[in-house]
């Protein structure tokens, strides 16, 4: 526990009363495995469902019931391990982690302790300042989820639903390689993206499919690791950031006030933004792990692993590299596009045979802000990638100016019509014919003779003329032609 972290470079500090402090963060992510049925029983693993409807006698831990492992969940864990560039362990063991809680009918959770299915790996995380860091993964293991307790239905009692009991989880443990709330948030975002590419976890944090236990400690730069506290079960990326910031500040204040940090489990209170001690559990942390006698060791054949390797999709890091290479995108645009594989897919469809930069600008600009306003995912976009491509074609061949294209795009969002149809129906094509534009320029100049003289002194007024001409043409005049003509007529 006390080994000094190998990444000794100090990336981030917070200011205390007597100097700088470094925050050391490690995460344990619980990711629900995407599967039809549970890890050790044939009942449904889907979210929701009427209370107790997704429960078998195995999940309720009735005497004599035996667990039988779900092959797909094993594949999903291996696939995730490969996506984390991790070592796949062909031999792993299921252990019982013993504790009593009303939503854990077995009295133990089937988990993996000494021999997890996946060993060390790594995740590359791009930070906001453009720098990349490597976050080492310590392990990934398979385990069962517990049931759910409700404390707010009845004032005297807790209500227990076992629908989640036995659902497969992957616990993904990082090394203490993160140094700030922002780094932790970026890491979880990246991990979620990888899981979604792999389709091994839907990453839906509101439904609890992805939750984090956060280990936080502080130290003076260069010192050994300080005593850590573990913040349990944080279920949104924003809350992860808030919890870390609060907890690091609290620890610095404690130490600077001459108190010691007590290793303990804490809860993040969403309503106050604070962490608080879960005192009751402190003494009970003795899980008495032992191999589950109901389950044999899990041996993975080489062919089983090879088959999964062959099924791996193109992962975000590789996709990013390819987008940069084949489309000449910058790292920033490529990061946005690969953050969701549907974005990248949409982009590649639009950019097929078209200017990649114009394509990416339309997608991350107009399209994203429209989807944001409409609160829609990209696969529900009212404007298809083919339609956006057609719109870009109309810009490229001069039919539409950038401004007109934006108007057409608005109509596309509302009507879902093809841009060519809209241009025809509304007679929106751009006026590129010079003589027609000249007529409008002349008209504007004739009615503003004083300003023409003024413009010879103050060339900035050219912009005003261009604006007037564009307005007169209802935005249809080609702006470059207008600009040239105005300059020529004024004589500069």
């Amino acid at each position, binding site marked *: 526990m006390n080994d000094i972290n190998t990444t000794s470079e100090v990336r981030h500090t917070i200011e205390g009363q007597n100097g700088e402090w470094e925050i050391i963060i490690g995460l344990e992510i619980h990711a629900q495995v995407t599967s039809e049925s549970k890890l050790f029983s044939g009942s449904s693993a889907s979210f929701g469902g009427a209370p107790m409807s997704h429960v078998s006698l195995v999940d309720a831990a009735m005497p004599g019931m035996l667990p039988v492992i779900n092959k797909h969940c094993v594949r999903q864990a291996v696939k995730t391990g490969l996506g984390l560039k991790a070592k796949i362990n062909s031999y792993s063991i299921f252990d019982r982690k013993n504790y009593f809680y009303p939503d854990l009918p077995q009295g133990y959770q089937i988990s993996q302790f000494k021999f997890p299915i996946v060993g060390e790996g790594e995740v590359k995380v791009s930070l906001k300042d453009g720098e990349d860091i490597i976050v080492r993964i310590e392990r990934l293991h398979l385990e069962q989820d517990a049931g759910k307790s409700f404390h707010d239905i009845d004032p005297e*009692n807790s209500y227990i639903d076992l629908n989640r009991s036995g659902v497969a989880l992957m616990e993904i443990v990082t090394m203490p390689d993160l140094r700030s709330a922002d780094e932790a948030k970026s890491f979880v975002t990246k991990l979620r993206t990888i899981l979604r590419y792999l389709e091994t976890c839907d990453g839906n944090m509101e439904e609890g499919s992805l939750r984090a236990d956060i280990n936080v400690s502080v130290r003076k730069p260069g010192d050994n690791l300080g005593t850590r506290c573990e913040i349990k079960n944080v279920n949104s990326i924003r809350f992860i950031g808030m919890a870390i910031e609060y907890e690091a500040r609290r620890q610095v204040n404690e130490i600077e006030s001459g108190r010691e940090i007590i290793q303990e489990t804490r809860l993040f209170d969403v309503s106050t933004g604070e962490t608080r001690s879960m005192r009751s559990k402190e003494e009970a942390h003795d899980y008495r792990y032992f191999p589950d006698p109901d389950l044999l060791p899990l041996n993975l054949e080489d062919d089983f692993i090879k088959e999964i390797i062959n099924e791996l999709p193109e992962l975000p890091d590789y996709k990013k590299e390819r987008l940069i290479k084949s489309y000449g995108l910058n790292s920033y645009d490529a990061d946005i596009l690969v953050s969701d594989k549907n974005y990248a897919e949409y982009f590649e469809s639009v950019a097929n045979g078209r200017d990649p930069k114009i394509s990416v600008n339309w997608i991350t600009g107009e399209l994203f802000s429209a989807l944001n306003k409409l609160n829609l995912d990209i696969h529900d976009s009212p404007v298809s990638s083919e339609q956006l491509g057609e719109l870009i074609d109309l810009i490229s061949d001069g039919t539409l100016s950038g401004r007109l294209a934006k108007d057409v795009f608005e109509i596309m969002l509302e009507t879902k019509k093809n841009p060519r149809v809209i241009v025809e129906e509304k007679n929106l094509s751009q006026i590129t014919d010079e003589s027609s534009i000249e007529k409008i320029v002349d008209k504007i100049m004739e009615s503003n003779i004083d300003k023409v003289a003024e413009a010879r002194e103050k060339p900035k007024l050219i912009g005003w003329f261009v604006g007037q001409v564009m307005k007169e043409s209802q935005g249809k005049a080609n702006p470059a032609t207008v600009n040239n003509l105005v300059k020529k007529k004024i004589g500069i």
Partner: protein
Amino acid sequence: MVSKVNQMTITKDTIRKISNLAKISIADQEVEKLESEISSIIRWVEALNEVDTENVDPMSNSLTGALRMREDLVTDGNKVSDILSNSPVDDENFFVVPKVIE
């Protein structure tokens, strides 16, 4: 390796800790009796320490063979009345237990 756990002693505190973890309440007068009983069981088992287990992997299961796996199909569930049939208290298909909150 051989004698690492030879000196294992069971104290009254150990008994109380185990009973607490197991959520089994034990009266004070029972603690003393259990202390001597469990101590003698441990002493008996400690005979195993005489076996040289250097270079022997821990055994996790007494059976041999591979773990049998099943396909990912929903074949069970929707038996709410069976699940609740032994429950002392239930309501709206939930188990109802005395309030537990951290």
